[in-house]
């Protein structure tokens, strides 16, 4: 069986898993891993010499490798949809290449509907229009939530457009990054119409702000007074997302499993133990079924996840120059 047929057969099994909960996660994850090892030199090299007996043992691709290497089974010369991590054109951006977004859309929309049932379809997104930013996976996902007003342009948040969209009409679904929401809340904003929902994603990584996440949520409740405040956790390198209500842990979909590992060795840690986070995402069929993040968290016995932010210690470099700082200096920023 060739790559295309093999992929289609696996995609069909994943679709059944997503829509009908049909199949065994472990078996399917291993099948996807074997497929990727056969067709992706990167994952083949990472898997060399390892014996993979279950989903927890699948060699995870560190997210930084998405900046350096073409990870996945989609060749450079093949048609692909490419989602990129944030950054400037000069700095290295991770690229998540998929043949098409069918599995991404299926998984993202299915789990969103389960986690945020009845969300208004009038959407105000403090994000860039996917027509302007086709490589933003977040914008791509939110575009599927309803009739969207996009409020971030090339120069940043267009508060006038956002405020106008928020004040006219019925219940609204505000989808935003934490930083964009913090910026909006610096303006004079009225409470949202009854039945409105606010979705927040991301932290303040790389941004200078005095506002904590808890402080932001308090301001959202105090100023916008939404009926529901929902948190989303997703990554460019993942096809599936986790959702949380209020302060509750994030819930992964059945086709995505988080795993906390020892940052020193990569060895899995048990439930309720904090560690560096990995994700095994069946919908990452075209890229890497297992990825390793630079975030830390606790995976609970029921599979839910409490996120604890970035791994500690990234700032202990003192006067030693990082690649990013060097790049920034060379660009004169």
């Amino acid at each position, binding site marked *: 069986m060739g790559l295309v047929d093999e992929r289609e057969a696996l995609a069909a099994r994943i679709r059944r898993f997503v829509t009908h909960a049909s199949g065994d996660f472990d078996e399917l994850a291993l099948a996807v891993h074997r497929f990727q090892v056969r067709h992706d030199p990167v994952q083949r090299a990472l898997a060399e010499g390892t014996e993979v007996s279950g989903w927890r043992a699948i060699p995870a691709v*560190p997210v930084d490798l998405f900046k*350096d290497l073409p990870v996945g089974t989609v060749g450079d010369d093949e048609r692909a949809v490419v989602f990129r991590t944030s950054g400037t054109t000069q700095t290295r951006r991770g690229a998540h290449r998929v043949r098409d977004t069918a599995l991404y859309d299926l998984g993202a929309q299915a789990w969103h509907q389960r986690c945020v049932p009845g969300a208004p379809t009038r959407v105000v997104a403090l994000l860039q229009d996917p027509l302007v930013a086709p490589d933003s996976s977040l914008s791509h996902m939110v575009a599927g939530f309803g009739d969207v007003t996009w409020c971030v342009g090339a120069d940043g948040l267009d508060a006038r457009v956002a405020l106008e969209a928020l004040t006219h009409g019925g219940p609204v679904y505000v989808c935003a990054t934490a930083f964009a929401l913090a910026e909006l809340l610096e303006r004079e904003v009225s409470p949202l119409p009854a039945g409105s929902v606010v979705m927040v994603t991301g932290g303040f990584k790389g941004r200078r702000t005095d506002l904590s996440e808890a402080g932001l949520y308090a301001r959202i409740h105090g100023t916008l007074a939404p009926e529901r405040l929902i948190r989303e956790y997703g990554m460019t390198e993942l096809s599936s997302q986790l959702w949380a209500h209020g302060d509750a842990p994030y819930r992964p979909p059945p086709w995505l499993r988080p795993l906390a590992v020892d940052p020193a060795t990569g060895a899995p840690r048990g439930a309720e133990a904090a560690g560096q986070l990995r994700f095994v995402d069946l919908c990452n069929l075209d890229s890497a079924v297992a990825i390793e993040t630079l975030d*830390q968290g606790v995976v609970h016995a029921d599979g839910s996840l409490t996120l604890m932010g970035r*791994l500690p210690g990234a700032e202990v470099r003192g006067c*030693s*120059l990082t690649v990013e700082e*060097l790049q*920034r200096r060379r660009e004169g920023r």
Partner: protein
Amino acid sequence: MSWGAVHGWLTSIAGSSLPEMDLSPPGALAARDAALAALSPEVLGRVASLGGTPFQSARFVAARTVFTAPLEWLAVLLGRGTTVELQLPSAPSDTGRAWQHWAQLARDHGLPLRLVPKGEGTTPELLVAMGSDDTIAELGQRAAASRFLGFGARYSAAVCDSVEDVPAIVFDLALYDGRGCMSPGLVVVPDPETLGPIAEAFAQALADTEVRWPRGRLSDAEHASIRSRGALARVLGRCDTGPAWAVHQLPWSHRSVASLPRAPLLCVPPDPSAAIAALAVDPHLSSLGTRRAVRAAGGGRVVLPGTQQSPPVERLHDGVDWLRATFRDGGVRAPTPDAKLQPGEVPDTEAT
């Protein structure tokens, strides 16, 4: 002038134990002793003979990692009679742990050194700061001092021409567990034929170093970075690992200047001479360890392997003539730093 008290203070530091640190106890002692060795009575005697008007007051903002860097600056300032406020990092750090103790020893010797938290203290005449680019930029913007000397982040590299160079380079990169701007994270291997034996020698030297001078505690992010670059090396080059060390080999196109604890990165440049010359003039370079005769410019130092972490007191600090810049009437920049061989630099004889 308080040079006698400074000598007494440094002797007390040498004779005292160190608190528990992220560095292993032997590693912390090695770092301390390397710093003290540079501050001999002879060297400080020459510094004392320099003419100039000392500042009345100074504040020194220390970086988190290399806890001995403030030693030379404070020894000079205190020796001249300047009253010094030392601002330690607010988060727990080896710098904070060491200096809680060393500041008390200074006061025991009657030296006017005071620890001050961020945002407190007086407005000094001289403000010296070391740390990340963001810290330096922030301090520079609001510095009210009459002179501000800010030293942001830099990187170091080493050239490994043969396996004989390896122990000295490993010494440089193992001191402080690879933290700080003088640790050579990037190792240039000019001859591709020697890469294999040199990588093996690095592995052996790192394993030997681990026995006598164990690696200390790493942060979770450091562990993750080592494993991440190791994964990249497994795909594009080679990764050898031990219990507390790693040797990464990557193509030159994927080189990085990030120094990871006890995890040197070996890269073979396509044009070694050009690559080494480019490193030596990179304005972001702190030091280049090499036995080759290379001209430095841009503020970085070219020194012999094994001495990258032991800068002489009489030198330019990132291009700044610091011994004179710490006089009220001294100039900040070296007269012509671009074209001249620098203290500690290999004399420009025939190329090897």
